[in-house]
């Protein structure tokens, strides 16, 4: 039985810790900067191009970070959530209080995820607010909660992977680099296979893409959003990038991909924490 008290303390702690990290703050700032730049560019486009998009401008702002930036942030949060605890020596503080290792694990996991969720909420509502202000009333905003939720689910892959590498290596920089290599490696492999598949008209390569960790993570939010929005939104040229992502995957398959990678990474992290020593702070 998990102690709600212990979980609440750890979740609050992880949020405060994340906010105290400069590297993360820079990445958060870059997400909001990306939002501003996107809308700045859109307002400079001719009315003929922007016309069909105007009612769905919020979709671009909400989905843009989910293609890469939010996953990089998630893996950084995951990698540092556990590894920095050992590096700094604060793991000793928590694990010598009356909490179980499971409570510590779940508390840290939930804390990091709560931080990312808050961030997704903030930039999503920020995007929706800017869109409404700049382009007038927005259509299909009822899909926004589902988009936010699916983005949160999609970040689980690289958040868990970061957490697992952090727990395994117990060195924050090294684990961030390793998890980052998996993300970018998968991203590059996916792009390469997709191009080769298109050029050679070989659909078997696209099947291989389905096993990559980025496949589910990058597509889930756009697939969920366009499934809810339906035909009107799909007509826009500016949303084609996102719709191309959504057309290649079925939600169930995407969720299966996300669940598999998340479960494997979390199991690895948990086994490492449960059955091995708590590493001493490097003196």
């Amino acid at each position, binding site marked *: 039985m998990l102690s709600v008290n212990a979980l609440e*303390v750890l979740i609050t702690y992880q949020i405060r*810790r994340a906010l105290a990290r400069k590297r993360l703050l820079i990445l958060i700032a870059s997400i909001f900067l990306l939002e501003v730049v996107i809308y700045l560019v859109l307002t400079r486009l001719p009315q003929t191009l922007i016309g069909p998009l105007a009612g769905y401008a919020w979709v671009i702002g909400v989905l843009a970070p989910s293609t890469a930036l939010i996953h990089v942030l998630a893996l950084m949060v995951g990698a540092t959530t556990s590894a920095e605890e050992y590096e700094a020596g604060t793991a000793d*503080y928590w*694990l010598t*209080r*009356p909490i179980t*290792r499971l409570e510590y694990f779940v508390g840290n996991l939930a804390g990091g995820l709560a931080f990312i969720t808050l961030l997704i909420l903030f930039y999503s509502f920020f995007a929706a607010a800017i869109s409404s202000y700049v382009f007038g009333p927005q259509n299909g905003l009822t899909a926004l909660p589902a988009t936010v939720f699916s983005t949160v689910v999609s970040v689980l892959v690289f958040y868990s992977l970061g957490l697992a590498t952090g727990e395994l290596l117990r060195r924050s920089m090294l684990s961030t680099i390793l998890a980052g290599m998996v993300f970018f490696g998968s991203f590059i492999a996916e792009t390469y296979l997709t191009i080769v598949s298109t050029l050679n008209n070989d659909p078997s390569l696209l099947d291989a893409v389905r096993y990559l960790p980025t496949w589910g993570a990058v597509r889930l939010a756009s697939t969920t959003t366009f499934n809810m929005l339906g035909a009107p939104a799909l007509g826009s040229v500016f949303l084609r990038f996102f719709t191309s992502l959504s057309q290649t995957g079925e939600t169930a398959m995407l969720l299966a991909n996300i669940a598999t990678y998340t479960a494997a990474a979390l199991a690895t992290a948990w086994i490492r924490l449960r059955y091995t020593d708590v590493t*001493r702070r490097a003196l």
Partner: protein
Amino acid sequence: MSETVVVQDLVKVYGDGGRVGPISLTVRRREVYGLVGPNGSGKTTTIRAVLGLLKPTKGRVTVLGHNPFEKPKTVNQLIGYSPEIPVFPPFYTAEQLLTITCRLKGLSRHEAKQEVGRLLDLTGLVNHAGRKIGNFSKGMVQRLSIGLSMVGDPEILVLDEPMLGVDPVGRVQIRDILRGLKKDGKTIIFSSHELYEVERLADTVGMVYMGRTVLERAVSELLIRRGGIKVVAELKKPPHPETLEILKTLRGVDEVVAEGQSVTLLMNGYDARDEVAKILANSESGLLGLKTLNPTLEEIFIKVVEDALR
């Protein structure tokens, strides 16, 4: 149960091939147990095994009958711990961290408020309660660490090098806190490589050297028996080298050191004070007085280590 913490033939083999053990110790209720040894001797490994932070490769560790690695929550409810180098989240204030620790120990809001006040007062941090820990001095962090270990009035306190890196004023404050705890009948395990501190505070001492327990004994007993007898003879004139040679040949005399008009002798296994007095009184130097000193714990430790190395 009079035994609170039992470590039996603890062996820990680390991933890099480092090995500690076998270490054994028994801490009884209301006892102040000093774990001594040089850096890297296995003190911290022992303490971390007691706290359930590491899994012994061999041997058994129990805290009031519980296995700390398997039941860390139960054990950490019974233990208050202050680490060798305390590290706390720098963005919390002392008051906030104490409150959080109270909550984790299961204290109600009202109880926590009272406990935080009591501990801030005890550790002398009342005036710094609202300051962020990141701005604390080493001594203040150490005092906060001891305060945190006392949250919820745990049955056993484990303090790893509580005086490490603390200035003389801070040491006096920490020593006073420990004395108060001893007076209150707390079971305390504390490690140190400063034997002077252990000698002043501990009831029992466990000596570890190169990853092994080399001795475990009551401090009082140890100071009387184990270390032998140290005698200082005050003379009228500096001693003749021949006299010193005669003294060295006496049964039980391990060491003879002359300095000016005094001679220090260390005896072990046999009390040769009468013979020493006779020889010196009849020598040209003449004997003014003979003073018997108990050896310090430090001297005993060096001797025990030398014996262990033979």
